[in-house]
């Protein structure tokens, strides 16, 4: 834990515990018998100005498994250690109240007491010393944190402390952490066998934090000499480095895959509706991005309504936003189809211009209604956070939810297209509009409904996007070019084309990005698409046919 607030909470908890139990009573039976008791002479340098002497005192305190020492360190770290008029050290417990640092006697705080100042160098020493004394805390979580912190330490003096802690430690997690810390320090041991065992133990942790230390052992310095004299230790270290690297590689790949899949899901959601309308009418709907934006704004409005009327159900507003977004954007889509687009059938380039005009109007309309600033849409609590897997890869819940959601939407569209009458008509028109018309398919109404369906899916996608990023009037613009790319690559007429194109673009993008940066990745993907389209001008999954236009 690097969080200083967490430290402060921990230290105050420990402090209160100790005070409650009474001064001088060990919170936990720690084998401190061999160390002499704390006396005023030993503490005296703390109040002085000699930094080296103060550092020495602090590290001595840290090596004691003694709650009295821990108490002084906590006070130093929290800034509640005072020095009284007779040079005695006092710990403030509450404003005006103090206890004696040596024997724990309660007293009132003398008026002339001064805070013991701690500079950064001392503060670091205090933290590392505290980590040692916390190894004997009552709460195993405090002990675990302390052990984990110690595993990053290079202070050999703490080795004996760790060994003592290992003797009394019962809890497995803490024992493992202590053993890692022990191995880390054992790398500096004079015995080659101990170093070798330590290197092997550290390699097993797969933790990249130890990579530098191990690599220093296994690789020659710039002058060709080895820091490590023993050949076998070097080999063990090299193996450990390789193990850590392999693991890191796996983590990176899994991360790219996960983020690629989640980006693919976003692209899929954004492009699915576009693919339906494009496949059906040969119309590229430039206002599609704005339909996404409307979906996101519906989410925002739902959130505001829930906050106002149903604050207890705030966590589930996203679920209510889904049908709302679907129906509202579907209505907008159907109105557009009836008023503008149906007059332009057979003139796809003109449709492209008209829908662009509509997108400008919708965008400016949202600006007028909600302002040009982004609005704030919060994740419900069950969507924030994530799980850590493979020791370092965080899979966030909102991205997982997007992937699941995309799968559900695809399933919904698949069912609709393949198992309903409307779907049958849509497929018939996609294959051959004139023939479908001849056999009695009401093409006008199907066009309207299918356009509504495409728009509704855009609305659903908008709900999903609102959970990932900013919601503003420009939201649609960010996705429109990418979703066109998906449609161009996937071809029309088959759901599978869109799905595969979206997921491959998303994953490829995330795999290229770390090597080339986001911008070059985009450009490379564009080049890739142009190359693919060279081979398959109608997209990857165009239905084969002999028709010409």
């Amino acid at each position, binding site marked *: 834990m690097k969080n200083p607030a967490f430290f402060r909470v921990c230290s105050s908890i420990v402090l209160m515990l100790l005070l409650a139990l009474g001064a001088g009573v060990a919170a936990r039976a720690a084998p401190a018998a061999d160390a002499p008791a704390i006396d005023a002479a030993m503490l005296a340098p703390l109040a002085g100005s000699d930094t080296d002497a103060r550092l020495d005192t602090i590290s001595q305190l840290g090596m004691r498994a003694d709650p009295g020492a821990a108490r002084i360190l906590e006070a130093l770290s929290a800034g509640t250690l005072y020095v009284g008029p007779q040079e005695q050290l006092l710990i403030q417990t509450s404003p005006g109240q103090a206890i004696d640092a040596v024997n724990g006697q309660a007293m009132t705080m003398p008026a002339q007491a001064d805070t013991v100042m701690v500079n950064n160098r001392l503060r670091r020493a205090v933290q590392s010393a505290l980590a040692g004394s916390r190894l004997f805390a009552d709460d195993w979580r405090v002990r675990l944190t302390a052990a984990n912190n110690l595993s990053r330490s290079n202070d050999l003096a703490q080795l004996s402390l760790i060994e003592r802690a290992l003797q009394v430690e019962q809890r497995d997690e803490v024992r493992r952490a202590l053993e890692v810390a022990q191995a880390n320090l054992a790398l500096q041991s004079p015995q080659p066998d101990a170093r070798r065992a330590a290197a092997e133990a550290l390699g097993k942790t797969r933790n990249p934090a130890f990579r530098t230390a191990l690599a220093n052992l296994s690789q020659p310095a710039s002058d060709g000499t080895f820091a490590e004299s023993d050949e076998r230790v070097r080999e063990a270290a090299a193996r450990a480095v390789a193990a850590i690297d392999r693991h890191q590689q796996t983590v990176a790949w899994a991360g790219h895959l996960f983020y690629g899949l989640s980006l693919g899901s976003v692209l899929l959601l954004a492009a699915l509706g576009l693919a339906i309308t*494009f496949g059906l009418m040969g119309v590229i709907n430039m206002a599609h991005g704005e339909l996404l934006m409307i979906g996101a704004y519906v989410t925002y409005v739902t959130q505001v309504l829930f906050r106002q009327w149903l604050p207890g159900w705030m966590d589930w507003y996203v679920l209510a936003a889904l049908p709302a977004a679907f129906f509202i954007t579907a209505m907008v889509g159907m109105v557009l189809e009836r008023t503008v687009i149906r007059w332009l059938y057979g003139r796809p380039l003109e449709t492209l211009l008209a829908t662009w005009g509509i997108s400008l109007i919708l965008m400016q309309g949202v600006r007028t209604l909600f302002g040009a600033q982004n609005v704030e849409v919060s994740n419900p609590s069950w969507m924030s956070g994530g799980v850590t897997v493979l020791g370092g890869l965080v899979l966030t819940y909102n991205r997982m939810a997007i992937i699941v959601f995309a799968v559900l939407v695809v399933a919904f569209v698949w069912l609709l297209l393949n198992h309903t009458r409307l779907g049958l008509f849509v497929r018939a028109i996609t294959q051959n509009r004139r023939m479908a018309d001849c056999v009695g398919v009401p093409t006008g109404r199907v066009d309207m409904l299918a356009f509504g369906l495409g728009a509704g899916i855009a609305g659903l996608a908008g709900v999903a996007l609102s959970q990932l990023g900013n919601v503003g009037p420009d939201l649609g613009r960010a996705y429109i070019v990418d979703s066109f790319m998906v449609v161009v690559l996937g071809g029309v007429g088959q759901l599978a084309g869109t799905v595969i194109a979206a997921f491959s673009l998303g994953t490829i993008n995330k795999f290229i990005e770390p090597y080339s940066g986001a911008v070059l990745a985009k450009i490379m993907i*564009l080049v890739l698409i142009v190359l693919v389209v*060279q081979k398959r001008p109608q997209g990857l999954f165009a239905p084969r046919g002999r028709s010409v236009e």
Partner: protein
Amino acid sequence: MTHLPHRDRLAALAHRPLLSPAAWTALLAATLVMALLPLANLVFAPGHALHISGYMIALLGKFMCFALAALALDLVWGYAGILSLGHGLFFALGGYAHGMYLMRNLGGPDGVNRMPEFMSFLSWKEYPWYWAFTDHFAWAWLLVICVPGLLAFVFGYFAFRSRIKGVYFSIITQALTFAAMLLFFRNETGFGGNNGFTAFRTILGFDITAASTRAALYWATLAALALAFILARVVTQSKLGRVLMAVRDSENRLRFIGYDPLGFKLFVWTLSAILCGIAGALYVPQVGIINPSEMSPQNSIEMVIWVATGGRGTLIGPIIGAGAVNGLKTWFTSAFPEYWLYALGLIFVLVTLLLPQGIVGLVRQIVRRRKEVDA
């Protein structure tokens, strides 16, 4: 596409002169009137009844650049049926190429040319290789012509060879300009990142803000526009132009007859990109700035609406359209800035729905109807 707006005229085109005497007269008169306007700025003092402000001259110069770009776009869209949503890229590339020359002539107070600030911020000690020779005016203009031309040629070759057409082609050109915009937004690309080039000082040694320099730039733009108009007329009146119209009206039929459209399309596509680059190059010294937002898909698609509003498939249409839409934009953005996007959106919708042949088509329809009434 089956509609043939020019079919009735095609037969008559065979042995017609480049322009009718009346059209030549109109062209010369219009050019002359436009050419005289900067004199009204230079000769008459401010306050005089015939004085035209420097702002107005700069605005008209800018509009003529737009008109040139629209003319270029109309060559591919109106005549060959290829809708490009990426002409803003060629425009901006021409602008950047000329801008490089202007950036090499910043000349501090001591008259010494320093490296642009954005390069010092990157702590670059010398110009990257692609800035070589850009301090020579002629080389910069070679770049103005070659860079958009070459890019268009390579891109067009691959796109037309694999018969990408219709909306597919439009979408890919849009993605192209979008990708280029992202590239130019990066500081490391070496073109000033999102600030682009600005604060120019001199061009060919003349102060770029002086009224006389502005007038000269205006005349250069006017000349370029007039020459481009004649060139476009030559192209569209030639046999090549007729093949292009056949590509537009039915590419497959043309193919079945035995033509390979690749060369024709590639020629007009590259020519259009070059003209667009020249427009951009003339635009930059007049507005004094070029940045990557010129490459945004919005700008390219706005160019398309200039052509559509004026009337595609005619040469005068895009010039009228660029002037009309931009004039409207200038007025709207100062009078009702909130509503300009509504107006622009409405123009897009209404022009495509009600005026598929644009203003020129509307005028022609009115004239024809009046003739019918007279007859």
